[in-house]
Each structure stands twice: as structure tokens, then as C-alpha cells.
């Protein structure tokens, strides 16, 4: 079949340990291989940077809360079409929206940045058919979605009774029913409490009526995850997010992973992924005394190898916050008084949406911006610290190139600091001004593809240029031997690739979408014996409490598009 050879590029591939050597990459039948025939199509990458396709470990791009955000924010479509500064139609469909782009724009934008895989960070199980409908309409990129378990009534009961085996059988059943990828936890116990207008702000606050604490939920789900040996670890958004002083809760939460070892066949080394840790690294006891806790949090992360994090960098944009952390969104709305949406989901979870403006003229926003970058700059091992903006919460994913610019250039950071109204106060409450570290392309490759792929347990398929991996490749117009002194050019290079290849098909060429090949829905199929107790409990809950019939709950096969199952065997 088709053969391609990418010649003379500078290769950055942490999975194979290649640090900018000049080499050729051969592709056959959509996979990376070691050699191809002389008939192979040649792509000239000389003077350019070549990396595996980007892997986004945490992003909100498909599903009910993303879409309610689109629906309630027509103003997010202000920039559109040729005459209003939007993108001219390149692919099969028009591209709409900024912080919460349409599914079409989402796929095209990721591809233009050289990303080919995105992990939707929160799928309410009851709404799984909706998530899969949007996956169908998101072009080019492969997508997985993680069902939320941290406020699930089944999990509460099994974990409270210390029935890890039953909890594992339930998780396996739900992953299959929703075609989900792994265990997501959002504000464990707190979102259930929010159904009564309450919250859990420490790891020991009891969940109303369920006689369980967030700490027990997190530990129970770590044990469940390792019992099953899932490709990814638990993926945690802990308690007390976004409040001054929350870094202490974060440290308490991270310590819950102590003593646990990963058990899986996928090369994953962590048992806990703490997502968007910027939002969890705040010191101070009020907005007036708000300051960075990045050093304290990263000191702990650096010394504990069974933890990974993603940064959740603030990009200083007007954006749309959305999370299954219902109480957080309510409290955020009490701060900014813009519009507020909330959706509590029966037996499972909740969510909230609030538009938010990270204004560089507001002191706290400036400090938040600093913290996001400090996390990455304090990191000792960038294979465990990944680049995200918790899209769209700290900023849209289309700003990744800007975050890369800030991480690679102190000059760029200083230029941004200089635009802040309360620059001196931001500097006093953070470490950013004193940090002269600048990341290189190899470290960026760790943070944006190799590291996330490994943490997801998918590094044999994604985020790698090693033989046998999917031929997902990004070629950037950036000469590593001559990095431009103007940081804006770094951002521009990462914003639009010279080429993006998806499974060996050129999908972006010269910054334009040129093809929309098929893509996959990645999910985790656990093969284990049916558990009679769990199936009995499931039937009972559907008879008594759900408003949808059990037989209509699991996503029908015809609504799952190009499924690609990662199989796990449990005896």
C-alpha cells in the first residue's frame, strides 16, 4: 500500500530517546517502519522539526457540558468567517467558535497544531450517546473519553463496603456500556454534596447520606484501577479546586497515592494523574493574600514517581469554564456574576459552566498565569508533567503554541509580565520573574506527546516515532539549530504545521486542511467474568432510581464510530 518517507528532518522522539538528530522517518500502511521502497512519496523536512503527533491528555471537546457552553454563548462566535477575522473554510465544514469551538473546528485546529489524539476528560455516563455523536462529527483526530466515577452511587457503596472486586466489575461494565477509556474523578464526593447545595472541601469531609469521604473514594478507585490493570491510572481533579490555600488539600490528595504501585501491561508508571494542577496550587487565605504554591506542590510531585500531572496553564483569554465540579462553578459565578449553567446528573455526577475572563489587569489572573508556567519550570521530569490548558477552563487548546512560547522563552514571559497592570504584585506573589529556565524542543516533545501517551498507557501506538506506532507525525517550520530570537515565531511555528500526518495520510499541508481520513474512538475493553452481584445491583438501581431503562443505557453499537478497543484481561 502507500509508502512515505520524511527526509532530513530534526527528530525529537523521547520514546526512542532521539534528541534532535537528523534522520528519515519511513511510513508504510499507516505505521512507522524502518525502511520503505524507492517508490515511497518523499516529504522534505530539511531544516524542520519532526515530532510524533501531539497527544492531549486532558481536554473538554465533546459532550453535554461542552455543548451547553456552545449553546449558551453565542458571543463566543464573535470572530467568524473571512470578514471578521475567523478562519476561511478549509475542510468540509465551516469553523465556528473560539473558547468552545464547534466539533469541526476542534478537529481541524488540533490537526493544524500537529495534534492527532485527544482525551475527553469528563463523560457523564448517562450522556455517553451524546459524547459519541460529537466524536462522529469531530474530524481527523482520535478521541477517547473518560467516564466520571468520583460521585457515582455504585462506587460509593462498593468502596464503603470495601468491595474492590465488585467495584472493579462495575467499572469494567460501565467502560463497556459507555465505550469509555478510564477512571475520571472530579471533586470526589463534593459534586454529590452539591446536589444538596453543599460541597466537600477537604479529603475528610463526609459525603452527605453516603457515609464515605473523598479520601476513601480516591483510594478505593486507585485500588480498583490497579486491580483491573487499566492502561491509564485514575485521572483526578481533587477537592477544593480554585480556592486560596487549596495547595494543602492538593498535597493531602497526592499523599493518598503513597504506597500504591502501578500494575499494568502498558508501560504506565503512575497510579495517580492529578490534572490541571495549576488550579490546585494556590496559597494564601483570601483573594487579597493569594499567591503561588507551585513550588510546594512540585517539590512533592518531583519526589514521587507514581504521580503524573498536567499543568492547566492560564492563557489570559476570555474563555468558558466548565467542569463536573458543580459547586466550584457556582462559587465562581458568585465571584464574577456572569451567566451560570449547572446540570446535576442522576446517580452519577454534575457539572457547571461559567464564562470567565482571565484579564491580565487583574492581579489574581496574573498570578494564576505565573503558577501554570512555574509548574512546568519547577518540574524535574517532564515525562511526568504535561502541557494542557484544561481546555477551555484556563484557556482554549488553540493557545498551546503560546504556552510553548512562554516555556521556551524567558523573554516572552517578561514581555507578558510587562503588560500586566499589577506586575509588581504578581511578581511578589509568584516565582516566575526569577526563573530563567527555558525548555528545549525535546522537553516540549516530552510534555506534549511522549509523556501523555505513556501516562495513558498508549505509547506503543501514539506519541512515538518508534517502529510499529501509528504514523501520526507533525512537521514544524522550526529549525532547531537556529531557534528564532523572536519568540513570536516559535508560537507561529507550533500554531500551524508544515505537515501533519494522521495514520500515514497527509491531513495538513502548508497550514491548510487537505484531507479528513477516518479516525478512531479509543476505549478500554475489560475481559472479565460477569459478576452476578454487580449485575443484580445494576438492575435494581435502574428499576428504582434511573429514569432511563437499563437496556437503553449502554451505547448501541451503531452509535460508536470506528471503535478501537484497548483490551485488558482480568482473571
Amino acid at each position, binding site marked *: 500500500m502507500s509508502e512515505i518517507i520524511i527526509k532530513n528532518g530534526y527528530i525529537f522522539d523521547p520514546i526512542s530517546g532521539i534528541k534532535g538528530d537528523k534522520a528519515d522517518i519511513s511510513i508504510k500502511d499507516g505505521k512507522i517502519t524502518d525502511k520503505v521502497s524507492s517508490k515511497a512519496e518523499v516529504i522534505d523536512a530539511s531544516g524542520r522539526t519532526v515530532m510524533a503527533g501531539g497527544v492531549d491528555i486532558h481536554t473538554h471537546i465533546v459532550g453535554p457540558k461542552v455543548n451547553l457552553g456552545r449553546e449558551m454563548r453565542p458571543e463566543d462566535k464573535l470572530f467568524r468567517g473571512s470578514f471578521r477575522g475567523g478562519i476561511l473554510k478549509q475542510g468540509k465544514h465551516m469553523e465556528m467558535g473560539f473558547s468552545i469551538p*464547534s466539533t469541526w473546528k476542534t478537529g481541524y485546529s488540533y490537526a493544524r497544531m500537529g495534534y492527532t489524539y485527544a482525551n475527553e476528560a469528563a463523560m457523564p455516563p448517562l450522556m455517553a450517546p451524546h459524547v459519541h455523536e460529537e466524536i462522529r462529527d469531530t474530524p481527523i483526530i482520535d478521541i477517547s473519553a473518560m467516564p466520571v466515577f468520583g460521585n457515582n452511587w455504585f462506587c460509593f457503596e462498593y468502596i464503603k463496603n470495601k468491595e474492590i472486586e465488585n467495584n472493579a466489575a462495575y467499572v469494567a461494565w460501565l467502560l463497556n456500556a459507555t465505550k469509555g477509556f478510564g477512571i475520571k474523578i472530579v471533586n470526589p464526593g463534593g459534586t454529590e454534596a452539591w446536589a444538596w447545595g453543599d460541597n466537600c472541601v477537604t479529603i475528610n469531609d463526609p459525603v452527605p447520606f453516603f457515609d464515605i469521604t473523598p479520601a476513601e473514594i480516591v483510594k478505593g478507585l486507585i485500588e480498583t484501577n490497579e486491580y483491573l490493570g487499566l492502561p491509564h491510572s485514575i485521572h483526578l481533579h481533587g477537592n477544593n479546586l480554585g480556592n486560596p490555600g487549596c495547595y494543602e488539600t492538593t498535597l493531602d490528595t497526592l499523599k493518598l497515592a503513597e504506597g500504591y504501585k502501578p500494575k499494568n501491561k502498558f508501560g504506565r508508571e503512575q497510579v495517580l494523574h492529578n490534572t490541571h494542577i495549576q488550579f490546585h496550587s494556590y496559597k494564601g487565605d483570601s483573594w487579597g493574600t493569594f499567591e503561588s504554591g507551585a513550588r510546594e506542590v512540585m517539590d512533592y510531585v518531583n519526589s514521587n514517581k507514581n504521580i503524573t500531572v498536567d499543568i492547566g496553564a492560564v492563557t489570559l483569554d476570555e474563555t468558558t469554564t466548565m467542569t463536573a465540579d458543580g459547586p466550584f462553578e457556582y462559587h465562581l459565578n458568585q465571584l464574577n456574576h456572569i451567566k451560570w449553567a449547572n446540570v446535576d446528573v442522576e446517580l452519577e455526577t454534575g457539572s457547571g459552566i461559567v464564562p470567565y475572563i482571565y484579564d491580565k489587569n487583574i492581579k489574581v489572573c496574573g498570578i494564576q498565569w505565573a503558577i501554570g508556567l512555574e509548574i512546568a519550570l519547577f518540574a524535574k521530569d517532564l515525562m511526568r508533567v504535561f502541557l494542557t490548558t484544561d481546555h477551555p477552563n484556563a484557556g482554549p487548546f488553540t493557545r498551546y503554541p503560546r504556552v510553548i512560547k512562554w516555556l521556551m522563552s524567558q523573554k516572552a514571559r517578561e514581555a507578558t509580565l510587562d503588560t500586566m497592570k499589577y506586575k509588581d504584585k504578581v511578581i511578589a506573589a509568584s516565582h516566575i520573574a526569577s526563573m530563567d529556565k527555558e525548555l528545549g524542543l525535546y522537553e516540549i516533545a516530552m510534555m506534549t506527546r511522549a509523556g501523555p501517551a505513556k501516562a495513558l498507557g498508549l505509547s506503543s501506538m501514539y506519541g512515538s516515532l518508534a517502529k510499529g506506532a501509528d504514523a501520526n507525525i507533525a512537521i514544524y517550520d522550526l529549525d532547531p539549530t537556529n531557534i528564532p530570537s523572536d519568540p513570536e515565531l516559535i508560537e507561529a511555528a507550533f500554531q500551524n504545521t508544515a505537515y501533519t500526518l494522521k495514520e500515514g495520510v497527509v491531513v495538513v499541508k502548508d497550514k491548510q486542511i487537505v484531507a479528513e481520513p477516518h479516525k478512531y474512538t479509543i476505549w478500554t475493553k475489560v475481559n472479565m467474568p460477569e459478576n452476578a452481584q454487580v449485575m443484580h445491583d445494576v438492575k435494581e438501581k435502574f428499576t428504582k432510581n434511573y429514569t432511563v431503562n437499563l437496556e437503553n443505557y449502554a451505547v448501541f453499537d451503531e452509535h460508536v464510530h470506528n471503535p478501537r478497543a484497548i483490551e485488558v484481561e482480568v482473571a
Partner: protein
Amino acid sequence: MPKVIENVGCPYCGCSCDDVRVTVSDDGKKVLEVENVCAIGTEIFKHGSSDHRIRSPRLRQPDGSMKDITYDEAIEWVAQHLYKAKKPLMYGFGSTNCEGQAAAARVMETAGGMLDNCATICHGPSFLAIFDNGYPTCTLGEVKNRADVIVYWGSNPAHAHPRHMSRYSIFPRGFFTGKGQKKRTIIVIDPRYTDTANVADYHLQIKQGHDYELFDAFRMVVIGHGKDLPDEVAGIKKEKILEVAEIMANARFGTTFFGMGLTHSDGRNHNIDIAISLTRDLNKVAKWTIMAMRGHYNIAGPGVVWSWTFGFPYCLDLTKKDHAHMNPGETSSVDMAMRDEVDMFINIGTDAGAHFPIPAVKQLKKHPWVTIDPSINMASEISDLHIPVCICGVDVGGIVYRMDNVPIQFRKVIDNQGLLDDETLLNRIADRLDELNAQGA
């Protein structure tokens, strides 16, 4: 042997019940019996296998009669007219599955036309309020399992959503609501003594058109200015307002369901806006949610599908082809019709002939009019072309969105017997348009 199919979704109201049992004939062509469903739902299933059902597209002839044509001919007719039209409008979608709504988006993006759904004449004002003020809501199971105070304001589920009260709100026993109706307080606010008011603990017989004032009064009480209320607001005595506000403020979990009585009386979107504000206020002292009583089983669908496709739920202007635009009043169906801006009209999965103002229908009728609908209705009878399609939930499955935006997977119960479904039909029209566009370019 007749066959029983269970867990079937009902294509009638926004309750989107998914527990229907349908018995079909041995050959899979006839619906014999329908259980677990309201009177109206029953009729839809029965109609699905009725002998009166139209099974072939019909094109109007110069003498005014309708002549049967093939699907191929109908697709060609629609594609050619869409290709020629400068500002075609496709409107409807109360009764199509989401797959059909996604295909419709493709057709109108390709054609460069206007795309709108029934919200434009029902819950459009709710969208306007949501754009301004958000939407603190929940799924219906939360109401079933937790709610101890229920408000129906300007809605009459006893008639419009027949199983709403029994499945989701007043009567069911849920996890924290084991005593069902006995432990719930039901408040109905309606100028009429409806059958829903008949089961309420409190019926506030509000003066017609004065909803905004009563909302305002409730907000005053919740915020702490109850003593400043006048003796009577909107026809309701001060003591009664204080009493009901007290119940709301002390709710463990409350839900307000609102309907056309708010969106289509004086105040419209402002009524919904203040209803949302009241919900926000109540969340400072209790836990409250709010939900629109969406009419049809999948009228939430087009708002959902088009939001992920274009970023706007309704009133879409796709005529520029490279970006979408929405401005209700300018791009809403009835307003465009009244100004005679539209030069082709496709009515799909609804009946604009019955629902639009007569002057709007008269303007639309000046131009080619296509109706895509399983049934004979007023729109089909004044159409130039009527294309019958499958009924979602009867002879085609698909995803639909319940009034709380929960996706429900519908099943097919009888053979489609040669009828095309909306998705296939619309995708074939879009394919043909792609060809015409390619030839034109």
C-alpha cells in the same frame, strides 16, 4: 407469532419515555398493541402501520393534483431547487432523530441557506434568556430521586406531557423520596384551573400576563425584602406569596418546570430570564434547578446538534457558506417569511401550515414549498412536493434528546417497507448538491 419489543422510545412529547412495549405482527409490518404509553403516544405507533400512510413522494401537477413520483425524482427536484434558490429555508425538526438533524445541517451548509427549528415558535424565548443568564438545571432523575418541592409555571403536563408527573416529578418514589407524592409540595402557577392545578398543594391563579411581577415578588422575599411587598401582586395576596416563597426557600431540592405560558405571554424571554434569576437567588439558601418543558420528543435535539456543528441552537443563517450567523428577529423563520425574504421553503418533521401565522404561510407559499414528513398535514397539503419518511421510534431508530438534554436511543419496531429515513434522504440530497456545486464551479 406476534413479537413483543420492549424498551421502545415514544415519539410524542418531551418526556421521551423509553419503556414502551410494542407488539408487532409476525411479518414485522403491523403494530398490534402498545403498552406503557399515553393515549397520544399510542396513536403515533398505530398510525405507523396504518393503511392510510403515504408511501411515495407526491409532486403537485399544473392542475393542482398530486402525482406519485419516485424518491430519485423527488431528490433531484429538491436538489435542483435548492441549487437555484438564493435564500432557501429549512424549518422544523420537532419529529426527526438527531442523525436527520445532522444531515440537514450538511444540506443547508452546502446549499447556503437558512436553518431553523420549532424552538423559533416555542422555546426560542428560553434560548434568549439562557444566552443572557445561563441555565441551572438537572436531569429528570434528580427530580425523581431528590425533589421535595416542584413548581409548574405556565405549563400543564396533565395534558401536554401526560406521563411527566408520574415518571419524573410528583408521584415517583426515588432514592431520597421514598414517600413519593406524600412528601412533595406541588405548586402550580397558572391563570387557569388546569388538571395539573387540580393535583397541586398550592395553585396560584395568577393574573394572565403578569408572571414577571410575581417572579419579582418571589425574588424580593428570597433576598429579604418580603415585608415591602404590596398587599397583592399579579392577583396573588401578599400572605400567599410569603407562604409559598417560604416553602421554596426551605426546599431540600426544588425544581421549576416552565412552559409556553411563560414563553408566549407578555414578557416572553424576560419571564424566563427572571425565572433563572430566581433560581440563582434560591441557590443561596436552598438547592434549586429549572427546566424548560420542551414540547416534542426530540425538539431539544436540533439545538444540541447544531450547537456542536455551528455554535448556535436555532435561527441559523448559513448563506455565507464559510461562517454561520444567528440573530433571532432577523434570521428567525416567521420574521423572514413575513418580510418575504425566503425563496424556497422546506418544512420537515413539523407542520408550519398549522403553526405559522397565516400571513407568513401566504408569503412562503409564493415560492417552492417542500414538506418532508411521514404524515398528511396542513403543510403537506399546500406543498409543491411532499416526501414521506420513516417515523423515528417506529420504522427507524436513532438518538433523540429528552427535555433535560439526556440522549435516549430509540429503536425501530416495524419494517420501513421502502420508506427512506430523514438521514438517508437528506444525505442523498446533499450528495446531489455537491455534484451540482462541483459542476457549477
